């Protein structure tokens, strides 16, 4: 758990970069820091592992004030991924990834196992890449190594500063998926900087929207999209925010919300899997693939049919429901 308690940061020359930030990143959750360029995302992140000093207020890491901790020791326990990966060009992939374990004095066998495990996790062949150098890898591969390096000593907490910022959209999307997959397995407490609202919605358990060093809204993605707290948030998430928010729900969410009767009437009705996102669902309906879609769960059971009306009702309920 990371707690920010009335944190302020003033840079030399009276630049107020962070302004009274109160914030808690719960254990095992991924919180996305987002906001326009220069709003203080990087600064806030770097105060956690003490790469920047805190001007006033305090940051607690699992209840302990970070300024009282031994810097070196603390940093080794926090995975840190910087934008543009920051791999050491003079070290092989293995050396890069195992640097913290090595500093911690792990034995060889343990390091080897960990390396193989992590390479598996990020989908690269350990033996093939072990002896290579960063510059022999593509940008996307480097980025994965950067993430794996931060995971190396299995730190409970991770700080990630636009880890996928420099990548092209397609590779980026793939890495996001992969990382979500990994996070589902490893359940780290993560503070993640991004400047892309789509990424934030896709990745975050919660989102912090910053502006000029101040927290504008700290909420779940759905809340941010459905109930922007002020005009700035509203504008930042975009005019099609409802469509964006539809990616957050699956058909399953919908049928759980209503009591639907199984549908066995017509034969030419198409089916839709319960894990499909509502965004795809609405596309299918609009695309005239069918007026209604039979909802099937992963076992093949029929859970009633999905119509445009139902969709509208669901969204209505969600948005209104959360308003209370």
């Amino acid at each position, binding site marked *: 758990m990371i707690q920010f308690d009335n944190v302020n940061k003033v840079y030399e020359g009276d630049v107020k970069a962070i302004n009274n930030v109160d914030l808690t990143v719960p254990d095992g959750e991924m919180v996305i820091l987002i906001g326009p360029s220069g709003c203080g995302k990087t600064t806030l992140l770097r105060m956690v592992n003490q790469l920047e000093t805190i001007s006033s207020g305090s940051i607690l890491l699992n209840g302990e004030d970070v300024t009282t901790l031994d810097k*070196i020791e603390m*940093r080794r326990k926090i995975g*840190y991924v910087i934008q543009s990966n*920051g791999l*050491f060009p*003079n070290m*092989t992939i293995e050396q890069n990834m195992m640097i913290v374990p090595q*500093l911690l004095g792990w034995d060889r066998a343990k390091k080897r196992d960990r390396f193989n495990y992590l390479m598996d996790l990020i989908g690269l062949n350990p033996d093939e890449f072990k002896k290579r*150098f*960063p510059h022999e890898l593509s940008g996307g591969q480097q980025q994965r190594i950067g993430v794996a390096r931060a995971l190396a000593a299995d730190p409970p907490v991770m700080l990630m500063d636009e880890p996928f910022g420099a990548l092209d959209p397609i590779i980026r999307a793939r890495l996001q998926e992969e990382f979500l997959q990994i996070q589902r397995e490893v359940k780290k407490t993560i503070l993640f900087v991004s400047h892309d609202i789509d990424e934030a919605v896709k990745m975050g358990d919660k989102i912090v929207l910053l502006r000029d060093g101040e927290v504008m809204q700290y909420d779940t993605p759905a809340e941010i999209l459905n109930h922007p707290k002020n005009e700035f948030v509203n504008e930042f998430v975009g005019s099609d925010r409802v469509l964006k928010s539809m990616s957050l729900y699956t058909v399953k969410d919908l049928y759980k919300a209503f009591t639907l009767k199984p549908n066995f009437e017509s034969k030419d009705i198409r089916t839709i899997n319960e894990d499909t996102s509502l965004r795809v669902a609405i596309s299918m309906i609009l695309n005239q693939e069918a007026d209604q879609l039979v909802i099937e769960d992963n076992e093949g059971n029929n859970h009633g049919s999905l119509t445009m009306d139902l969709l509208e009702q669901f969204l209505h309920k969600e948005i209104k429901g959360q308003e209370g």
Partner: protein
Amino acid sequence: MDTFNKRTALVVKILLWTAIAAFFIWGFSQGMFRQIYEQPGLFLELLGEHVLIIFASGFAAVLIAVPLGIFVTRPAFRRTEWFIVTVANLGQTIPSLAVLALAMGVLGIGVEAAILALFVYSLLPILQNTIAGLDSVDENTKDAARGMGLTNLQILWKVELPNAVVSIIAGIRTALVINIGTAALAYLVGAGGLGVWIFTGIRLFDNSYLISGAVPVTLLAIAVDLLFRYLERVLTPKGLILAREANEA
């Protein structure tokens, strides 16, 4: 176009080697190198003096300049850096001849004066390159190291120095090559070396002395240059060579 370029390059290369070959053939046929084989003992003695001056001074300079370079690039002493760099730059505008002469003023005639002068003169390029090499290490890379909990010493040892090593060796190479040339002037302060023959040749208009002195000194310089270029390649972490190639491509 490409084949034309290749051919031009080849022609130039052939012309060059022909010229070099012609020089040596001319030299040998005219007995230009005769001092070497007529007085082999003396030649070896002069060569020995030359090498002693170069390596004694170079070695001492490395021992002083590299740690100094590391010292001034530490954040706490960053303020001193511009001063050291300025002094190093200014120092290099003083001609080597003058440095030799001033060393003679301190230590009198002899080998010691030459070693002192060359030591002082080699400090500058080694220092400059050490600083430049350490400065050129990517800020992001250092930041990543800090963020992972490396101590300052570990950052220096595992990240900064490996990445600066090319530059440092290049500095040593520059220093040594300059030293070989300056050591040829060491005769002027009574320190011997192959400069003895070069000056004898100039004074007497005797080309055999001149060539017997100048050509070995030149070959020595080229050999040391090549040796250190080779060392640079061998000692450069492989990842850095790849990085450089990637940047050039």
